[in-house]
């Protein structure tokens, strides 16, 4: 009984390792294979004539460069807004039970909304205001900020709960205003969680596909761009782009490691 269990465990771990390595290998291989060879059948498992032209085209093509910049801008702006608002909400939730219930209800309620039910009417509203499909991606940044607040709030909630009330009370008695206490004490003590929240919100925006597809039709961010590259049959450039898109996320996972665990379980959503 125990040996079969051991075998099952081994198989599972092997499956996990292969499952992580194989996609990376296939994408890397595809990004270095010339298009003509990529369409060969049966597929080549090792490129016969490897090339760097797809990576060069990724950097040379204007549209891709602007998509990278746009993705960076949208992710950075939305992460900052979401973390700021999330910190506010999380602090209130940590200090007051009514706020806590209200906060959890709103956050849970927001998670019930399907993207498609929001994105189509939102696109029309953004068009009326004039920020639909904007070259700067500002409309998308605001949307991403809104959907990232739950993640930021839940990540920071735990951090603020952990700050002892006595520290705040001591500062009260010493004459500091509640706002000052929040800014100088709470934020300082929760700074690692704030960093985690910023990173999580950044990655959420960087990876987000649905709203990006519907709100930025021509001035695209990276996920819709990759989608169009794929469905437009540009295998090599799509693979090169996919590899590049993985880099921020992989860095973060490898660097943050265990501290990511709690945060991921708290705030992840589609």
């Amino acid at each position, binding site marked *: 009984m125990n040996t079969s269990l051991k075998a099952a465990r081994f198989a*599972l771990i092997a499956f996990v*390792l292969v*499952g992580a390595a194989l*996609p990376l290998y*296939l*994408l890397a291989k595809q990004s270095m294979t010339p298009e003509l060879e990529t369409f060969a*059948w*049966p*597929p080549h498992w090792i490129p016969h004539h490897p090339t760097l032209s797809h990576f060069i085209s990724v950097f040379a093509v204007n549209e891709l460069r602007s998509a990278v910049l746009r993705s960076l801008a949208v992710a950075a702006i939305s992460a900052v807004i979401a973390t700021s*608002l*999330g910190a*506010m*909400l999380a*602090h*209130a939730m940590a*200090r*007051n039970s009514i*706020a806590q219930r*209200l*906060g*959890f209800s*709103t956050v*849970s309620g*927001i*998670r*019930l*909304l*399907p*993207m*498609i*039910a*929001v994105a*189509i*009417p*939102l696109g029309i509203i953004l068009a009326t205001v004039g920020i639909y499909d904007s070259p700067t991606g500002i409309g998308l940044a605001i*949307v991403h*900020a*809104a959907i990232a*607040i*739950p993640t930021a709030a839940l990540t920071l909630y735990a951090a603020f709960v952990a700050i002892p009330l006595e520290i705040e009370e001591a500062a*009260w*008695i010493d*004459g500091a*205003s*509640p*706002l000052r206490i929040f800014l100088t004490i709470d934020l300082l003590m929760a700074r690692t969680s704030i960093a985690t929240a910023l990173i999580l919100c950044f990655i959420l925006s960087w*990876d987000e*596909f649905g709203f990006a597809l519907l709100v930025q039709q021509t001035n695209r961010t990276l*996920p819709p761009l990759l989608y169009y590259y*794929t469905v437009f049959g540009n295998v090599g450039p799509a693979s090169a782009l*996919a590899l590049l898109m*993985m880099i921020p*996320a*992989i860095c973060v*996972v490898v660097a943050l490691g265990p501290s990511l*665990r709690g945060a*991921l*379980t*708290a705030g992840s*959503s589609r």
Partner: protein
Amino acid sequence: MRLRRIRARFTAVNASAKRLRTVFVVVPCIFMITMLVLPALNGLLLSFDHNGLSLANYKILFDDSMFWRALGNNLLVPFGSVIVEFALGLALALTLTARRNRSALIETAAILPFAIPEIVILTLARYIFLPRGYLNGAITMTGMHPLPWLSPRSPLAIFTVIVVDAWHVTPVVMLMLMAGLQTIPTELYEAARLDGAGTFATFRFVTLPMLMPAIVGALILRGIDALRIFSTVLVLTGPEGVPVLSTYSYSLWDDAQKPHEAMAASMILALMVTIIGIGGLLAARRFSRDDGALA
């Protein structure tokens, strides 16, 4: 005298703290509601707009056989996906929590499918499951007949979509369950071992019951997310291959240029998610140990 000053200060600060708290709650909530809930409500209104207030948009949907396919798939695929996620996630959580297998490499490898952007995984999955993709390439090399993994006429497509959707999300389930596993006191395992319980008995009578709240909590979160499946199906099969409500709505908006009908379809999806979500939350109340702490 000092006490009165302190008390007065306390009351004043208390009031201003309350004001700050109100702002801290109201501003983010108003922001979220304005950006997300109001458009959805607008969409709800538009779904009843067919040259005036009417239910015609919904009737058009109900007359469309693809709508019913989308509705059915929107229950079948998330259901299958959640089962796979949890089976795999639980297995991984148990395996990785056992002290022997503690390895940063394996943990990172397990988390990787989630760290990678979903669109990247889907792009790769597409190249794997195409009729002339890598999987059929490997199968052909062994001399067997290739399979129609993504063919719109084959039920195999639903299976493929379930597996790909689950694979991306399994790491999250694994992490949630690992967090739950760590709250189980080791004394219980000791007691079980002293009582002579084997591996499976320990799992059935110690691990599983103690893990139930975490499982239920994760089930609700992942279940709600799974219902909103969109990009997996869009990239792998297109809106017509394995239709689900979100891609059906998208296709009505983008291909057919019918925004009102698209809103109607998305409202039905929202209704489904709300019903199942609230139902799940209510059921979870009976299971959770700590009141309200589902996060």
